[in-house]
């Protein structure tokens, strides 16, 4: 196929001339003149461009808020894009979310408002009883500079109380839309504009073949980073292979979680919450909701960033990854994948296919993220900590850190200070001292080297305090979840 097909509000779109770097936001605003969706930052941080993306999953049609600014057009294939222009109430008037935003004075300048309405719409559809905590989480990816948010939270609560989900247009049209989207899926799609090319493989085997043929292709999953290469750095990403719809399997077998590389943070959240509950809060601090809905764990790893959110935790859990090249597969410990800043153990034509995470039911585990702002911020220091204790003795310790070196990295001196020691404060004090020798962090706009080093040390202390006296107020808490 050489056509990109998707549903835009109630219109089916079929495009033949599409470049890999074309964004959904430009398509909406410039081509379609759907100007309700705004550009605030073009980097997926402010949420003014939030639209809903509906896609078919094994559980049916799912609508999620996404950032149109860094949504590349090829990622929209066989999805339903819903913009603010499509939103209305059952009587054709204001939707309950819109009515509540008006009644509660939830807009001032109004520029962020369509994006906020769409994020709240996404929440309203999936979590009608959302409380303050859930609303805040849903709005992590939306900046409002005028209101101070309080009226928006009140509006979201009022809209939730108003109900009406069953009568909502997207609910009523669900089956019809699902059928239309199903009809768009299937064959490999090859898109081009001039020399610029984008490929949407049919399945993972097709991806393997395509990448083998053109190993220099840019792999695009959620585009939460690649999107910025395009919008901020104007980089040419052609030829690009779009893989966000592939490798979606999640399985739990015994003490192993197997995540396909294309599993998004949002898709993985329930499994993490169930099997690694210590990381549930951490997981919700990865990006904003829009980013979690498209960003994939495989790409977070493959990207190789020293400040990726998942590697410290996954390394602490002894996670392994499966790399695939053509039909060949190899498995390695995740920590070995990161060789040096910007360099990973990935061969031409090879891609991350799966992440295998052992569940350490008896271990003491923690995941910490420290950033300038609590939500939707890039890590200053992230830590994954796992300590195995048997009969009062620390039998093994894994302390992996992000933001402390050019790659996500274990604190081996600190681990050594723990291993074999009694599970007592003295061992953690020793580890906190030892970690100074593990890293030479850098200073940048997010944090100074001194701050990073101090925080790394203190996170070991926090871990001990939390483990030694559960219930001790050691960490800041926002509103408890409903």
């Amino acid at each position, binding site marked *: 196929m050489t056509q990109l097909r998707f549903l835009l509000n109630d219109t089916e779109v079929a495009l033949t001339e599409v470049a890999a770097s074309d964004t959904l936001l430009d398509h909406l*605003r410039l081509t379609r003149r759907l*100007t*309700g969706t*705004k550009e*605030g930052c*073009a*980097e997926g*941080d402010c949420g*003014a461009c939030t639209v809903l993306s509906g896609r078919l999953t094994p559980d049916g049609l799912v609508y999620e808020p996404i950032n149109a600014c860094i949504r590349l057009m090829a990622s929209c294939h066989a999805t339903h894009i819903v913009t603010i222009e499509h*939103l209305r109430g059952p009587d054709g008037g*204001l939707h309950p*979310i*819109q009515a509540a*935003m*008006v009644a509660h*004075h939830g*807009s*001032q*300048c*109004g*520029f*962020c*408002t*369509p994006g906020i*309405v769409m994020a709240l719409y996404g929440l309203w559809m999936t979590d009608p009883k959302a409380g303050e905590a859930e*609303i*805040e*989480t849903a709005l*992590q990816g*939306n*900046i*409002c*500079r*005028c*209101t*101070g*948010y*309080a*009226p928006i*939270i009140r509006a979201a609560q009022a809209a939730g109380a108003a109900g009406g989900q069953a009568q909502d247009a997207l609910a009523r049209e669900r089956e019809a839309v699902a059928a239309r989207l199903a009809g768009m899926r299937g064959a490999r799609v090859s898109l081009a504009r001039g020399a610029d090319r984008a490929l949407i493989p049919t399945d993972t085997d097709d991806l393997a073949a395509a990448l083998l043929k053109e190993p220099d292709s840019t792999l695009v999953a959620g585009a939460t980073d690649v999107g910025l290469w395009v919008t*901020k750095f*104007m980089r040419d990403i052609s030829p690009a292979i779009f893989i966000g719809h592939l490798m979606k399997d999640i399985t739990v077998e015994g003490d192993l979680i197997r995540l396909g590389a294309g599993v998004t943070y949002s898709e993985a959240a329930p499994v993490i919450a169930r099997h690694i509950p210590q990381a549930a809060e951490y997981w919700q601090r990865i990006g904003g909701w829009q980013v979690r809905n498209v960003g994939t764990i495989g790409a977070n790893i493959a990207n190789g960033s020293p400040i990726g959110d998942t590697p410290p935790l996954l390394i602490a859990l002894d996670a392994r990854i499966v790399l695939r090249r053509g039909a060949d597969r190899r498995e390695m410990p995740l920590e070995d994948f990161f060789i040096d800043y910007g360099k990973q153990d990935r061969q031409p034509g090879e891609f991350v296919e799966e992440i295998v995470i052992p569940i350490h039911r008896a271990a003491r585990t923690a995941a910490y993220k*420290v950033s*300038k*702002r*609590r*939500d939707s911020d890039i890590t200053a220091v992230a830590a994954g900590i796992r300590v195995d204790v048997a009969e009062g003795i620390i039998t093994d310790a894994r302390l992996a850190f992000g933001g402390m070196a050019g790659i996500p990295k274990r604190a081996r001196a600190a681990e050594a200070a723990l291993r074999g020691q009694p599970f007592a404060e003295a061992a953690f004090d020793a580890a906190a001292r030892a970690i100074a020798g593990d890293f030479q962090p850098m200073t*940048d*706009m997010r944090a*100074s080297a001194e*701050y990073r080093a*101090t*925080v790394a040390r*203190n*996170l070991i202390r*926090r871990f001990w305090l939390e483990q030694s006296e559960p219930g*001790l*107020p*050691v960490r*800041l808490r926002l509103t408890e979840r409903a």
Partner: protein
Amino acid sequence: MKDDAAPIAGQAHQDTIHDSAIKHVTGRADYTDDLVEPTGTIHAYLGLSTCAHGRITGMDFTDTLAQPGVLGVLTADDLPGVNDVSPNGMNDDPILADGVVHFWGQPVFAVIAETRDQARRAAHKARIDYDALPHVLDPIAARDAGMGYVTDPLTLRRGDAAVAMADAPRRITGRFAVGGQDHFYLEGQIALAIPGEDDEVALHVSTQHPSEVQHMVAHVLGVPSSAVVVNVRRMGGGFGGKETQMNLFACVAAVAAKRWHRAVKIRPDRDDDMTATGKRHDFVIDYAVGFDDEGRIRAVEGDLYARCGFSADLSGPVTDRALFHADNAYFYPDVRLSSHPMRTNTVSNTAFRGFGGPQGAIMAERMVEEIAYALGLDPLEVRKRNLYQNGQLTPYHQEVQDQILPRLIAELEQSSYYQARRQAVLDWNARGGVIRKGIALTPVKFGISFTATWFNQAGALIHIYSDGSIHLNHGGTEMGQGLNTKVAQIVAEAFQCDISRIRITKTTTEKVPNTSATAASSGTDLNGMAALDAANQIKARLTAFVAENWKVAEDQVAFVPGHVRAGDQMIVFDQVIRAAYMARIHLSAAGFYKTPKIHWDRTTGQGRPFYYFAYGAAVSEVSVDTLTGEYVIDRADILHDVGRSLNPALDRGQVEGAFVQGAGWLTTEELWWDDKGRLRTHAPSTYKVPLASDRPRIFNVALADWSEATERTIKRSKAVGEPPFVLGISVFEAINMAVASVADYREPARLDAPATPERVLMAVERLRG
């Protein structure tokens, strides 16, 4: 027909929704980038300097011009008129750098192309060579390097501060660095210029100051102002960032529009917007305070060094206002306050909500904290002991006459359970532990009026059409604050007709000339009065007409809901208008207002720059993680004075929003330059404004509904845009308290602002020793 007993919809002093609220939530509110573009619109994109200070030795546009769609490049040599957008006549604000660049990110050239994407890509293909010169980034380094001032400094004096300082029982001196702030208006800078006949050009611009854009464009094109029309329907946020910063973009668009005879749009990306436009001034403040054993201030000396950037822009009035508010709410018996508007190789800083006032006010609160810790007092006690009493003089010799803080603070102290909660915080901290708490009550007294007295004027234009519909126009601009709604309420009430009858129209220099910026919280005060003047002129004509036509005395004519009453006759408003039209009554009026009583002599540092003061206070409680420096605002209680509120719902929105923005300024919003002079926090990925989860967990906001302006302001209301921003200081003070607890409050934490988690943790580590 409306029952004449029922009040009109949207009358003054009532909660009324923002006039654009429904358009906002449906995405149908048009911002400048949403307007239908004229056929053949082309696009401009700026090329920015990549050197913090240097001589341009070469500009090579070969590759730029070879890019697809490129029509040409503009440099300083291509501007037909003057290469300057200085808002103060100092001629120090080039549109495009001429020979020398003064900061990293300064506009050097503009590329014009068929599409924005083409122009943007081509701009990055230019090659500009520099001969680098030394650069200076911060104000103290600028002072030490002899960089000089960008504009005249100011000193305010009353009494003899040096003598009183020497005589004071106790003295404390200190230095306090206060960071700047990016506006982060959600809608970035944008202009669309449409060329007209002869020398004419019309622009749609996201600006707070259409008249200045008009004058600047005229200046740069070398044409009379009458040839230029500037239109603004709404902005997606301004906060001061579109008071002067839009001029440059509008001028580039206008120059290109005239040169290529096509409509030209210019919109920088977010990174360029944040790099190339001015921000809130950072300050370094050296303070000395003399006081007695009861915590009463005897003398204050302050030197306020501001990072002004490479040009004056509004740094003169901003640093002046920092001095005007360096007393915050407290009487200084003997005082000397000096501003030092330092020239630096950074973007020229500009207006931002509060306009220097918050930076001055936080100096006062820092001194209060020092006094309280030195004496072992609750800082609130020190605050109360130093509040102005009516009749006392400010450092600029204005007599305080409308003081309401004693009552306001007492009410807030009660309603927030301040005393009990402070005790609970002290008890919590006494137990030790990782999480520490802090609580602080800080007030604000904010002077209302432009300190440039001539700006305190406004115009409005009202037409009533023969069908009875009303067209309202005024010189203020709508940036989300609800100005248009409030002015419409005033007009609706004047004519006693529903607000829906009043058509709010875009601000345009064609209808109201020589307007002032919508700034200094003054929008409603000035434009509301001007609109009322226009309405009253028409009402006077209608009254005379009705009296004559319906044969009653003029004092028997009254405007009542939906009707005009003439003696015992009730005539529907539309009928009155129709009859008036037929009788050839003039149904249009231009209104005008100028603020009375104010005067200011900058040479003596004395006068009455402010018509009145707006007051408020906030109590904030925070929790701080002493292992990481992170914090949460657990609760904030605000009681704020807006006089007789014109629209309590909108006013509460201003208070809440300003408070959170003020808290952001002092917590996570950090501007960070590298050693090359590059601002590295230039997008929301690196510059962190508050999110929903950063707002106070409990947030109680109330208006002091008993307050009424003592001066004859518009319906006895008070301005609200800026004053509550200052209340964000309560969050900062509470964090300071939590940090100080780790050393048992033996000394204040003396955090510099913003109190990022890093600064907080480092202070904890320092205090623990």
